[in-house]
């Protein structure tokens, strides 16, 4: 056994145990680790924002390079602070509206391109897509399953009518496809989480306690 002498490894190990103690129940050790985690994260976030966002994107162009145009985003950003002044707190809605409007405009074309056009392209029953499965003559079967899955899943998300009759059948098939997809995603993600847990245990019995090399 070769226990670590580095105090930072000890801190990391003890904090890991503090967080794991939550599995028993809420306790002062967990509370301590939780508050420390939130505090450190906020400190890091604040420093990161100043050094990686404000200085390069605002202060440098405005005050060092003299690009006066940057006064505009500075003023809009300052309106966020107005909520601390009750009489003019309504001004905070201006930067909120600008931010949401800007981001929505930015997101919609990308979403249409990636989530609609590309998905349609990949679903169409055509020779090129059959070949893309790289499964020989079975490619047409996989593509047909994909096609049925997409059509039925889309019908599940049709909200204008109750799911009865034909729509009821297709939407039921759709939810089966959805649940199969969830099952696959669940297994995959659980596997990844278990791997994270193993990594933490390896840290405890390796670098910290030195039970394994």
């Amino acid at each position, binding site marked *: 056994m070769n226990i670590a002498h580095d105090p930072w490894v000890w801190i990391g190990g003890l904090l890991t145990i503090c*967080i794991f103690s*939550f599995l028993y129940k*809420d306790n002062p050790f*967990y509370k301590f680790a*939780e508050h420390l*985690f*939130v505090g*450190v*994260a*906020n400190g*890091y*976030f604040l420093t990161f924002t100043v050094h990686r966002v404000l200085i390069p994107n605002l202060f440098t162009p405005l005050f060092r390079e003299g690009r006066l145009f940057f006064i505009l985003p500075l003023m809009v950003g300052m309106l*966020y602070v107005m*909520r601390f002044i009750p009489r003019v707190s309504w001004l*905070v*809605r201006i930067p*909120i509206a600008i*931010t*949401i409007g*800007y*981001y*929505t405009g*930015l*997101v*919609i*074309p990308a*979403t*249409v*391109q990636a989530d*609609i*056009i*590309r998905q*349609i*392209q990949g*679903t*169409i*029953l*055509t*020779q*090129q*897509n059959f070949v893309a499965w790289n499964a020989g003559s079975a490619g047409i079967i996989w593509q047909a399953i994909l*096609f049925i899955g*997409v*059509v039925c899943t*889309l019908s599940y*998300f*049709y*909200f*204008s*009518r*109750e*799911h009865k009759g034909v729509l009821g059948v297709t939407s039921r098939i759709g939810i089966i496809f*959805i*649940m199969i*997809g*969830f099952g696959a*995603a*669940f297994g995959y*993600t659980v596997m990844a*989480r278990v791997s994270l847990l193993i990594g933490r245990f390896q840290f405890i019995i390796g670098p910290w306690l030195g039970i394994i090399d």
Partner: protein
Amino acid sequence: MIYILFSGIFALAPPTGVKAYDTPNDRGDAITVEWLLSPDDNMIEGYEIYRSEKGKEYELVGFIGAGRTTYEDQTETGTEYTYKVAALYDSERSYSEPSPVARSEPQWFDKESVNLLIGVIVFCLIILYFIDQARRGKRLQIRKISGLDAVDEAVGRATEMGRPILYSMGIGLVDYIATIASFNILGEIAKKTGQYETPLIVPTSNPVVYTVAREIVKESYSTIGRPDLFDTDKVYFVTDSQFAYAAAVDGVMLREKPAANFFIGYFKAESLIMAETGASTGAIQIAGTDQITQLPFFVTACDFTLIGEELYAASAYISKEPLLLGAIKGEDLGKIVILSVLVVASLVGLLTKFPVLNIFR
């Protein structure tokens, strides 16, 4: 000896006609270099692209295989460059004449996305049409969304037990569609909790999301005539860090013991951590996200889950707002269009040799 003889006789022909121009339809950070193939293209390894900035020495910026005639170079906006292209064979290089000066500038309009713009405009017009119909009083039917009925049950239960309700929007930024949908649902839940004077706790993980959430809750309480219920300590920013946020929300669930937990918005790996903790406290849990990888966890750990677009429809269903109802109706029409396109394009793809996939590039 053979090599010396060969290299003495063989003079590698350079590529010719090198031109450089601002890459069109971009944000001004690229220059496209084009050239005519070297006559020895069939035997060379490829082409090296050299760049000179404002008369400085040429430096190697890229390599591309034989048979290729274009290269896109990442550049500084507004800086002037000239380019040379060298045919490369073994260690021999044959340089072209320099290109004329080129510089990259951002374009205001991406002409390649015109079809996308038209599609979005048409889609918006359809939605506006339905919004107009809803405002004129036309009844727009939306099917019942299972899980939403539980909202009233959850609020009622919390009221009876005298415990608060927790509403988490996850770790999404304000631009995420799931976060925007979550704002709508938050507004409605805030109204319901306000009517019963049930405390609503909203821990957020992003400063902008926090600001918006705060305004929404405040506005909702004002709408029902109870602005006095708004408590600044109940809607708060926790941290931007994903797992620190999860740890803090877990702490809130164990200490404040909310009777109902809403996890509605954009979630990543923290989803299961929070939903499992909530389930262990016995709270009724309603979740909704468009993150496919997290939905399985919500399905297993929560009582009701809004799957994907149900999240967006939910806000319309519970609010009955013409704006939202119109949007859902427009989206449904969009789905019919997509289904029609899929069927027609598949028929064309199966029955003809028309390259139907190229339409969607």
